[in-house]
């Protein structure tokens, strides 16, 4: 049995992993364990399949006819698919294990079984999206994925905010699918089949290339959450259960990126401004995404906006690679796309870690509001350390994985400075990407120092009903594995690069691909080595310091802070106060809404101050637009009389009109 078929089997096992549980009692935790076991089994089969097909010398592909009127059952597996397969196999499985403790079926009899069903379906559909080599098959898997994600995001559908976020998601994802329909129909007209195969260079006019590119960007961009197509993302991520958020953010967004990378690989090299547009979009999404994240005080909305930022970084890498493809610079392609794909892995590691971690926090505090948290680190030492690790990694700081991928992109951006020196088309402005990345890095640092400290450090800002404690191994285990992944990629990047390299060279001609080796451009070993030195030296230094301080410290006193005698927990800096200066800097885009009391009398009465940063685009543009259409379109209800006879009449009229059109068409 070849690796490819193993992946199809894995997709089936994953997709139906939640089904057996439906025949058990609503409160049966055994059924939930069975689902998780099936998820592990499916992922293991898929992992073995990926391993088999990667060790095979050639890319596998199978194409079978089926009974549908369009397309064929075509599937294939190459390095690019494999790069996306690995997070799909890893994160949902870890999420399912985490869910055993986090979303116990005994505690959630109303929605536990549905959650398990759609959770597996989502994972299986994503596997099929990545291996599909036929646009009809891809769209079918895409739709299953989109709809199961809708049911997952609306798990707690008794809550109005959850339902609202779910509807927004459904509208957004189908707007994207609409563009995909147009895209694939156009492609069919050009290539003559629904197969996802490379379009010949001469077959496209520049206008047509631009149209195809824009349709790809919009259609898949909705799923990836590329700003300004991100409006669905914060609400859906914040309102889903945490392990679902981890899968949506860590894996599902990447399906949009997969579509963009795959389609651009099929198209002939794009024009330079297409790459420039991707760069600009990515930079804008990165900077504004993280600025919005700083404005949030809901920990899951913060993480969701940070996903928008990370997708922006990935899109920047793709933009650089696209420029390189046009300018025939293999090094930009390999650095840009390699950096983007590695960042995609990294993001699925650390963002899943942070989302799972936030689930533990929400469980302990019964709120998502960071301004009410604080001081959890003393109760949950392991959880807080894992969050710290994830925060350092997501800020792209050494010695963890985020640094490696951003470093690759930086090298590409700095390299683009040298283009004009060697002659040919000059695009030194691409170097501005480095500035954008630097700004994103500094903002991300502010954002995650804030999230870490407000949640885990200091003292609790509200009395807690129960003393919080670290969760059991079923929840800690997945987080520990993800954290280990972050550390390994950060300290030994040279071992993960060959696959990334192979995937990135999909964008190159065969001869350019063989010449362009990522490892020859960049000294990855040095980065890994320094990361290890940093970890080792800091660790040893810390232990020595602890030894020395053991006999020489005065404990049992409060924080001095200039001798203030009676500090209360409410005097601590909150997440909102920490971000206030940055929110003010970005007020032109964030439009923060502040309600402040007017202070008039010398001894004012108790006042109430609040400030929120809602999504500017959603609240001020998209929703008003839909309200407007909602007022306009009901006039069309004139056509809907509610009588079967009238509808039958419409059908008759329509058929007659078609007949008339057909006869006219035949005559001419």
């Amino acid at each position, binding site marked *: 049995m070849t690796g490819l078929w193993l992946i199809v089997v894995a997709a089936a096992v994953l997709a139906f992993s939640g089904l057996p549980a439906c025949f058990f009692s609503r409160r049966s935790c055994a059924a939930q364990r069975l689902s998780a076991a099936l998820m592990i089994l499916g992922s293991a089969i898929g992992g073995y399949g990926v391993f088999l097909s990667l060790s095979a010398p050639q890319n596998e592909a199978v194409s079978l006819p089926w009974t549908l009127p369009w397309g064929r059952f075509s599937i294939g597996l190459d390095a690019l698919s494999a790069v996306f397969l690995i997070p799909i196999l890893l994160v949902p499985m870890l999420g399912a294990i985490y869910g055993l403790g986090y979303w116990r079926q005994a505690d959630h009899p109303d929605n536990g079984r549905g959650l398990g069903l759609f959770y597996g379906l989502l994972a299986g559909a994503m596997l099929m999206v990545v291996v599909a080599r036929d646009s009809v098959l891809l769209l079918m898997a895409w739709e299953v994925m989109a709809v199961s994600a809708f049911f997952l995001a609306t798990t707690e559908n008794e809550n109005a905010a959850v339902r609202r976020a779910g509807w927004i998601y459904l509208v957004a994802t189908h707007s994207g699918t609409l563009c995909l329909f147009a895209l694939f129909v156009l492609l069919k007209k050009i290539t003559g089949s629904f197969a996802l195969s490379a379009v010949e260079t001469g077959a496209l006019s520049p206008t047509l290339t631009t149209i195809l590119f824009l349709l790809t960007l919009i259609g898949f961009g909705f799923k990836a959450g590329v700003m300004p197509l991100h409006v669905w993302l914060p609400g859906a991520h914040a309102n889903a259960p945490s392990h679902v958020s981890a899968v949506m953010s860590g894996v599902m967004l990447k399906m949009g990126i997969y579509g963009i990378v795959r389609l651009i690989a099929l198209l002939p090299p794009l024009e330079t401004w297409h790459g420039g547009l991707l760069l600009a979009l990515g930079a804008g999404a990165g900077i504004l995404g993280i600025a919005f994240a700083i404005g949030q005080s809901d920990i899951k909305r913060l993480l969701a906006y940070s996903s928008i930022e990370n997708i922006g970084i990935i899109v920047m890498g793709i933009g650089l690679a696209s420029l390189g493809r046009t300018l025939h610079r293999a090094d930009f392609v390999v650095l840009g796309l390699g950096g983007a794909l590695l960042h995609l892995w990294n993001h699925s590691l650390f963002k899943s870690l942070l989302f799972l971690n936030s689930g533990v926090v929400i469980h302990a505090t019964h709120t998502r509001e960071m301004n009410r948290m604080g001081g959890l680190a003393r109760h949950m030492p392991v959880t807080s350390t894992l969050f710290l690790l994830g925060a350092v990694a997501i800020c792209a700081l050494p010695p963890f994985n985020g640094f490696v991928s951003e470093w690759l992109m930086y090298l590409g951006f700095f390299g683009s400075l040298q283009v004009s020196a060697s002659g040919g088309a000059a695009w030194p402005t691409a170097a501005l990407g480095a500035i954008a990345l630097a700004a994103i890095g500094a903002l991300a640092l502010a954002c995650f*120092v804030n999230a870490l400290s407000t949640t885990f450090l200091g003292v609790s800002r509200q009395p807690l009903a129960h003393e919080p404690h670290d969760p059991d191994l079923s929840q800690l285990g997945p987080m520990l594995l993800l954290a280990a992944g972050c550390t390994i990629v950060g300290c030994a990047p040279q071992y993960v690069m060959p696959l990334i390299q192979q995937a990135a060279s999909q964008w190159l001609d065969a001869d350019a691909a063989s010449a362009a080796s990522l490892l020859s451009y960049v000294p990855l070993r040095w980065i890994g080595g320094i990361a290890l030195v940093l970890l080792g030296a800091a660790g040893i230094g810390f232990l020595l310091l602890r030894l020395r301080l053991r006999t020489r410290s005065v404990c049992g006193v409060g924080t001095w802070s200039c001798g203030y005698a009676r500090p209360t927990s409410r005097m601590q800096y909150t997440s909102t106060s920490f971000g206030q*200066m940055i929110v003010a800097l970005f007020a032109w885009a964030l439009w923060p809404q502040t309600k402040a009391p007017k202070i008039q009398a010398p001894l004012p009465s108790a006042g109430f101050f609040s400030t929120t940063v809602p999504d500017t685009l959603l609240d001020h543009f998209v929703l008003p637009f839909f309200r407007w259409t909602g007022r306009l379109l009901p006039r069309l209800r004139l056509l809907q009389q509610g009588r079967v006879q009238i509808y039958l009449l419409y059908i008759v009229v329509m058929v007659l009109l078609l007949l008339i059109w057909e006869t006219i068409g035949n005559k001419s």
Partner: protein
Amino acid sequence: MRDIFIHIALLLGMPPLLLGVINKTKALFAGRKGPPLLQPYYDLFKLTRKHVVISEVTTWVFTAAPVITLTALLIAGILVPQGPFRAPLGFTGDLILFAYLLGLGRFFTTTAALDTGSAFEGMGAAREATFACMSEPALFFALLVLAKMSGSLVLGDLLHAPLVTTGWEAEAAPLVLVAVGLFILLLAENCRIPVDDPNTHLELTMIHEVMVLDHSGPLLGLVLYGAAIKLFVLSSVFLHIVAPFQSGRAGLDWLAFVGEMLGVAVAIGVVESVMARLQMRHVNYLLIAAILFCGFGFVLLVR
């Protein structure tokens, strides 16, 4: 080998002297006698022998942060060449590692500040994190200019660009702009006047000093030593642009480097003596000016 040894010895030993020189300069301007030049060393020595007061609010992050910051700064210091000599360590892309190691230090300094749960320290951390959002792009503009001039992505070659590029005088305009920008960064990153006042702890306008209010004993010693190393490292980056000279004789060059470093310290002392601290809301403008200086340098070079 000898140069590497001197490099590391200077990196470890010289930073507190810079603080001493700055303080002496300021004292001379104020008409005081001032503390001895070696006072920072005495202070560090004294602090290592003291007890530590650790607030019960804090976690392990509070004690680990100074160690991690110091480690990051030392590695950064190994990447930066001193004077015309090669850095002990250099590879393609180490310039980004350099910038991000400074970022790692910032992450842990601010986290440790927030670990105490005090609003004072929170304010300092918020300011540090906010101002970094402006100083980071400026630093990268400067790096872009130098990378363009040198055609290299190794920090050592990059910083030696003004030294080895023949006819670099033709590129003097971007270099002057970058030098001004980097000097602003040097003052801002090391929390000197006009951005921050290292001498007062208790005012609400402080950044760095207010973040370390609760550190004491050896922990405070580590923090102060780390801050001095940061000053040393950033000063040696700055020196490469304003004083790209080489005599060819190693001994003379090392002496010249030490002399130039002390010169930078005197310059910082003079700036601190003749200027007042900016209002907190005006610091933004100063940092944006640094972005503009380095950014225009980039524009001039790329055109």
